[in-house]
Each structure stands twice: as structure tokens, then as C-alpha cells.
């Protein structure tokens, strides 16, 4: 084990991120952080995680993804004096669409779309709403002040505010009263090489309506499916370039 007491501030910085040092002039150095090979376990700027949801495969009466998300991340059962359908957290919802003219009905899960240009990040006054280098959009609850601007800015109703005390949370997802939360794309799993809980549950349900993968890798199954078949981004007119895409909606 390294002894952190003996590390200088500089060493700790280094241990935190790959640092390249460039001497500009005597006494003036430029340090750059990052680099994807340097630390494979880090969020990788060479990747962008995304989902492709096929509404034709999504069964109307199935909500395995929602249940799995609740279990994994510990939301959906907060109770407390402010509890109710309007205040309850919803990281992922099943949405049913009906075409007025044809009567065709489809159903699909909607969660944070992990926008490439996320309005929630734009409006956040504290920097708590943030985007990782691999495209995953998160709330840094350590600095969120609970102003809920991001909830207003999100076109997809993807964010929730926690209204009640949450005792003894899941280790997977720290969450508590007074801050905003949303789908993390199961970042705690993805960072350790696992697929998100909803993807796992959807596959186990036999529907396999959610495809997970790296949008930046042209050979990944998700990229090839997007190239081959037509798909849409929700509210494509807003040009947010979400990481979550839909087929047959």
C-alpha cells in the first residue's frame, strides 16, 4: 500500500490523473491531464456509451428495466411526508405512444438521454450537472444545491428531485434529500466492465429491446445497427445528439 502521508501534493495529483508536463519557460510548466491508455480503468474519452431501444421488441406489459433500475439504484420507494406520484423519483419510465390516425400503439422506456449537448449542464449554476469524457451525464450531488434548473431545462423529464430523507442507501448509487438525480447509465457498473442493469434485465426478460454499446467504435453492434437501420433521437429538432436512440417508435 502506498503511504499517502509521504506523497507530495504533486504526487497525489499524479496518482489522480495521467499528467504530462511541458516546460514552457524556466519555472513555467504546463500540465495536461488525461490520455486514455494511461489508465484503462478511467472514463475513456475514446468511447461514448449509448443505448439503442427497439420499440417493436419492447413488450407493452413489461417493465423489467424499470424494476431492475429501482433495485439497482434504490429509488422508487422513498415515502415520507412529501411522497406521491408527482414527487416520486423516476430515473426510467415506460412511455406508451399511440398514433391517433392509425391506432398503432408502441411502448418504450425513457430515461436520461445522455445528450451530447446537455441543456441540464448548460443551465446548472454550480457545475454539479456534468458530462464525463465518455458522454455519461451525471449530477455531482456533492455540489448540487437543489435549485432544479436542470429539471426545467431537460426536454425529456429525465430528472427527479429527492423530497424525503433516504436512510441507508444502496452502495451503487448514493442519493439523498435536497438534490437532483437521474439515470447514470449505471456508471458504477460500466466503469467496472459491466452492462447497465436495465440492459441486463431486458435481455433476461427475453425481449432484448435495449442494445448497449460504444457509439464511437464503428464496429460495435450498436454503431453497426445505427448505420444499417433507421432510428431517431427524441426531439431531434433540438439537436442535442443524445446517446440514447430509438427504433420503430
Amino acid at each position, binding site marked *: 500500500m502506498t503511504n*499517502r502521508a509521504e506523497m507530495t501534493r504533486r504526487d497525489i495529483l499524479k496518482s489522480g490523473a495521467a499528467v504530462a508536463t511541458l516546460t514552457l519557460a524556466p519555472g513555467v510548466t504546463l500540465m495536461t491531464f488525461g490520455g486514455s491508455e494511461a489508465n484503462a480503468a478511467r472514463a475513456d474519452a475514446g468511447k461514448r456509451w449509448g443505448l439503442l431501444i427497439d420499440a417493436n421488441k419492447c413488450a407493452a406489459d413489461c417493465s423489467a428495466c424499470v424494476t431492475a433500475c429501482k433495485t439497482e439504484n434504490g429509488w422508487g420507494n422513498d415515502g415520507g411526508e412529501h411522497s406521491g406520484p408527482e414527487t416520486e423519483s423516476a430515473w426510467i419510465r415506460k412511455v406508451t405512444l399511440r398514433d391517433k390516425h392509425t391506432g398503432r400503439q408502441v411502448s418504450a422506456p425513457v430515461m436520461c438521454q445522455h445528450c451530447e449537448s446537455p441543456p441540464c449542464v448548460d443551465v446548472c449554476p454550480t457545475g454539479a450537472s456534468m458530462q464525463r469524457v465518455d458522454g455519461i451525464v451525471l449530477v455531482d450531488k456533492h455540489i448540487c444545491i437543489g435549485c432544479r434548473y436542470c429539471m426545467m431545462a431537460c426536454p425529456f423529464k429525465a430528472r427527479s428531485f429527492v423530497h424525503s430523507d433516504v436512510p441507508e442507501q444502496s452502495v451503487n448509487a448514493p442519493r439523498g434529500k435536497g438534490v437532483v438525480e437521474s439515470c447514470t447509465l449505471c456508471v458504477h457498473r460500466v466503469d467496472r466492465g*459491466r452492462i447497465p442493469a436495465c440492459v441486463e434485465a431486458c435481455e433476461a426478460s427475453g425481449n432484448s429491446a435495449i442494445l*448497449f454499446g460504444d457509439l464511437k467504435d464503428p464496429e460495435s453492434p450498436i454503431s453497426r445497427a445505427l448505420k444499417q437501420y433507421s432510428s431517431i433521437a427524441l426531439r431531434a429538432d433540438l439537436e442535442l445528439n443524445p446517446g440514447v436512440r430509438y427504433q420503430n417508435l
Partner: protein
Amino acid sequence: MRLILAFLVLLGLSLPLHADDHEGLPAVPKATGEPHPEGNEYWRKNHMTLLLHDRDLTLREGEREDIRASLESCFDCHTVKDEAGEAVTIEDERHFCRVCHDYAAVKPDCFTCHRSTPSDNVANRLMATPEEPNSIAAYLERLKALEADESEASQ
């Protein structure tokens, strides 16, 4: 005033602690596991800085392997059990964090969002191996097999 008080506490804590010869000082609950290589005094003074540094690494950079200061691992060793043998939560004044924090009158706000007891949910604690069915590697293999089946069927 708070600073002076905190300083006095640290001074107090750095002395060997025995409830009887240091009347009134908090009796730090005994830990299990390997001792910190830096020594307890260092952690008493710096735990907040280390936690602050490593939380940003975890949340913002996605570092999961080389993290030393995480509440989850604190409670691997620093847990106080009640009479029934259950780990006490932050609601209980015997909780590891509360013993000193109550004494110093400094309220940690970690536990609004973080659990204050060890968790038996360890499924995501280690890096996935390709053998695990829910690993990305195994998932991609399944997709590949599916695709091969489909292309065979269409021929």
C-alpha cells in the same frame, strides 16, 4: 472558535487513548483489518481532504480501481456493532464517525446521501471478469453469437 476546538481535539486524539486516563475524551472505537500505513494521526487530520480528493476522481473521472479513501471501504474496518450484532448507523451516537464528530461539534453531511454501514451488496465492487454473464465482454460475445445465428438463418 470551531478551529481552535478542532485543533484541541486533534491534539487530544493524537495521544494514546484510554478512556480512564483521558477523562472526557472520545474513546475511538476499535477497528478491524490492516492499520493505515500513514498512521491513525495522519488519517484523523486528513481524512476529509483525502475523501474530497478521491470523490472527485471517482465521480468525475470514473476512477474505480486506484481509490483509497471511500466511505464504502472505511466501513470495512470502522464499524461499531450494537448489542444484537448489527452495525450501527449514523443515527446512533456510537457510530465510528459520530464519536469524534459529536465531541468536536462538527456535523458530517456525508450521510444524507451515503450509507453509513457496510453493505452486503458487493456485486459491483470488483472489476468484472469476462466470465461474468453481466460483463460487457460476455454481453458482446452473446450479441456476436446472435448475429452469426441470424446470418446463418437468412442464408
